[in-house]
């Protein structure tokens, strides 16, 4: 069946940014301020992003805790990341986080204070020092002040524009981005000197997740297809506690037990207790020292194992027993969370007077595209920042470190992209034919008379990932998953069809395009998980349950033709190499089961 060439508008931008979260917005602001003409693509309405949903805790060395230092923050990041972070990026994060926090204050965000000029700080699970700032409006406040900074600069934001691919010339250099305007069903090719991918993570790969519906890993898959490398993509952070019901709220993060106990402000105090259906504090078996104040990876695994081994509640969770004494400060700091607890669970739970049912949920993509400290990927003209980029957090992220990550590296990606475009000078429009050809391929599902609907396939992939490439992994199941993915790719994807023939807001069509991205990343995650024969941070294998020092290394994945090339690579350390400062005594880590 002949498909006519789809309609495609040609547009221009110096820097094209995909993603309307804080990383994309900060990149837009930085690139604009450096003189570039910027276009930002938001997959839906611009406020629909993961930053919006965040509790907004922001780790930074503000000077208001004299015991803390950027060395300590750096050391905490490496310790949480179990030594496989990109040291240089982690160092940059520690050094620049506070400056970016001040930027947000300049934008109009009023950080919580104890005194007029002194910020209120709290703890985070797994960290060793009190350094997290926050604001009562959380991720909503951060996104709002940034959106208005974008308006003030007149930066063009295109809602309902999904980036489907970057277009490259024969040398592999990015010459533009292909996007579909979902609100009209029209293709747009943005000829640009640099494309910044800030499309967030892959939480939607999993059946139970905390992120927004749009985070299907589009940008990471696009980078992979463009020839970029992915690092440690097998590492997926599961938030240990999230809502169990109602269906719409299932999986939404409740952050960490540390915040429901006195440990929220005192590193030596207790976090909220976690109990199985026998009333046992099972977390003690996994981390006898920090107990429920442990890192997210340890806690999430502990809870998942209890549920899998039949010691969970009938609804499939465990119970968290908060400390009612912290209710007043909890209400003051996080009224939005109290409201959700009230609406989803009830008044007693909202007042922290009754046990709260919780379960782990897929939250954050720890790995991602390989970039340097200026967010340059291996593909010329392609930049990646935020959750889509890998390396900063290693094997497990500290709570509160994503907010500074997206500001620090969002800005760097914008600055670097603008600089590259300036150095390029005048350019001609190239890549239109390639863009048209790719658009035509992606039209296929719209024109197929019969076949499989995308929502069913998505659910199947999500279940496979949750069951086999989630918190608990093993060799045979990973191999089984890879076989299932191969079958889906070869037999199901070519038979996708959409019900609606309207080109306007065709969700099934969007999901059909997303499916290729989900599959690309799912395969990369399963294959990398198979390769890493150990347990470290968020990656847990029942057949290799111990940490293996030989695996203090990264796994790098790259597409070579139709195959995925997987290799082990040394961790990027500081240059020149220097001893990682030991700012605190190392806590004993319980051996994983």
């Amino acid at each position, binding site marked *: 069946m002949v498909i006519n060439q789809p309609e495609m508008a040609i547009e221009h931008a110096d820097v094209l940014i995909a993603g309307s979260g804080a990383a994309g917005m900060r990149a837009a602001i930085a690139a604009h301020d450096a003189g570039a003409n910027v276009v930002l693509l938001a997959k839906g309405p611009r406020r629909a992003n993961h930053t919006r949903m965040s509790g907004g805790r922001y780790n930074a060395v503000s000077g208001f805790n004299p015991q803390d230092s950027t060395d300590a923050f750096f050391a905490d990041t490496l310790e949480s990341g179990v030594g496989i972070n990109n040291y240089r990026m982690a160092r940059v994060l520690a050094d620049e986080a506070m400056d970016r926090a001040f930027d947000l204050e300049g934008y109009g965000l009023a950080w919580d204070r104890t005194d007029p000029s002194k910020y209120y700080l709290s703890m985070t699970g797994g960290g060793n020092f009190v350094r997290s700032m926050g604001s009562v409006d959380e991720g909503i406040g951060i996104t709002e002040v940034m959106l208005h900074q974008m308006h003030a600069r007149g930066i063009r934001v295109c809602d309902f524009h999904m980036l489907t691919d970057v277009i490259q010339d024969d040398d592999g250099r990015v010459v533009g981005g292909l996007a579909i305007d979902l609100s009209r069903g029209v293709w747009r090719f943005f000829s640009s000197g640099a494309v910044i991918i800030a499309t967030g993570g892959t939480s939607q790969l999993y059946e139970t997740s905390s992120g927004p519906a749009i985070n299907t890993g589009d940008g990471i898959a696009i980078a992979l297809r463009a020839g970029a490398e992915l690092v440690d993509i097998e590492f997926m952070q599961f938030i240990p506690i999230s809502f169990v019901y109602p269906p719409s709220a299932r999986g939404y993060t409740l952050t960490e037990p540390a915040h429901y106990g006195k440990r929220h402000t005192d590193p030596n105090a207790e976090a909220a207790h976690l109990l199985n259906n026998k009333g046992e504090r099972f977390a003690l078996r996994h981390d006898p020292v920090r107990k429920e104040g442990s890192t997210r990876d340890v806690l999430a695994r502990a809870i998942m194992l209890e549920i899998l081994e039949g010691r969970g509640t009938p609804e499939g969770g465990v119970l968290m027993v908060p400390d*009612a004494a912290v*209710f*007043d400060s909890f*209400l003051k700091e996080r*009224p*939005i969370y109290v*409201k959700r607890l*009230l*609406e989803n669970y009830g008044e007693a739970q909202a*007042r922290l007077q009754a046990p709260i049912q919780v379960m782990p949920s897929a939250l954050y993509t720890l790995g991602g595209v390989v970039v340097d400290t200026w967010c340059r990927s291996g593909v010329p003209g392609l930049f990646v920042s935020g959750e889509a980029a890998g390396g900063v957090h290693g094997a497990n992220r500290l709570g509160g470190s994503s907010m500074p990550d997206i500001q620090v590296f969002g800005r760097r990606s914008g600055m670097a992209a603008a600089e590259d475009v300036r150095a390029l000078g005048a350019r001609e429009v190239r890549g239109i034919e390639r863009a048209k050809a790719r658009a035509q391929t992606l039209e296929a599902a719209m024109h197929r008379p019969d076949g499989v609907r995308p929502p069913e396939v998505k659910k199947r992939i999500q279940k496979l990932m949750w069951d086999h490439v989630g918190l608990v992994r093993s060799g045979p199941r990973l191999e089984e998953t890879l076989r299932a993915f191969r079958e889906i790719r070869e037999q199901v994807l070519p038979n996708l069809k959409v019900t609606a023939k309207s080109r306007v807001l065709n969700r099934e069509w969007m999901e059909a395009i997303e499916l290729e991205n989900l599959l690309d990343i799912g395969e990369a995650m399963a294959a990398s998980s198979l390769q890493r024969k150990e347990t470290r941070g968020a990656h847990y294998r029942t057949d290799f349950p111990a940490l293996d020092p030989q695996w203090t290394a990264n796994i790098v994945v790259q597409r070579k033709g139709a195959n995925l090339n997987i290799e082990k690579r040394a961790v990027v350390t500081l240059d020149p190499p220097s001893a990682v400062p030991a700012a605190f005594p190392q806590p004993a880590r319980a051996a994983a089961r």
Partner: protein
Amino acid sequence: MSAAARLPRNTTRQTDVVQHGTIARILHRITGSVIVVFVLVHVVAQSVLQVPAFAAVKAGAPWLPVVQNQSWIHALLYFSIVFHTLYGLKLLLTELGVRIGYRVSVWAIVAVSALFGLREVLRYAGL
């Protein structure tokens, strides 16, 4: 303090709520219209009844004094005047900075206005 601290609202049943403000606004509008209509009708009616030049019209409308003495018309009028005044005062005061809750105030004003209306009914009933 914990027990007394007010929780955020549960806003998951908004389609079921009684929209106090809508009721207040509509009542304010209706009572305002009642007052305006009353004034117009009252002026006309009193002219017909009092002005010698309209004696012929008065003769042709023997029902007019009867209508004027209906208790429910008086009740409606007094309710309207009291409601419109008090609610208008509430709006004015809130704009000057006085904090008045939108829920209780509407129903309190309705209750007071209803009392005045009831008073008319009782007066006509000879009580």
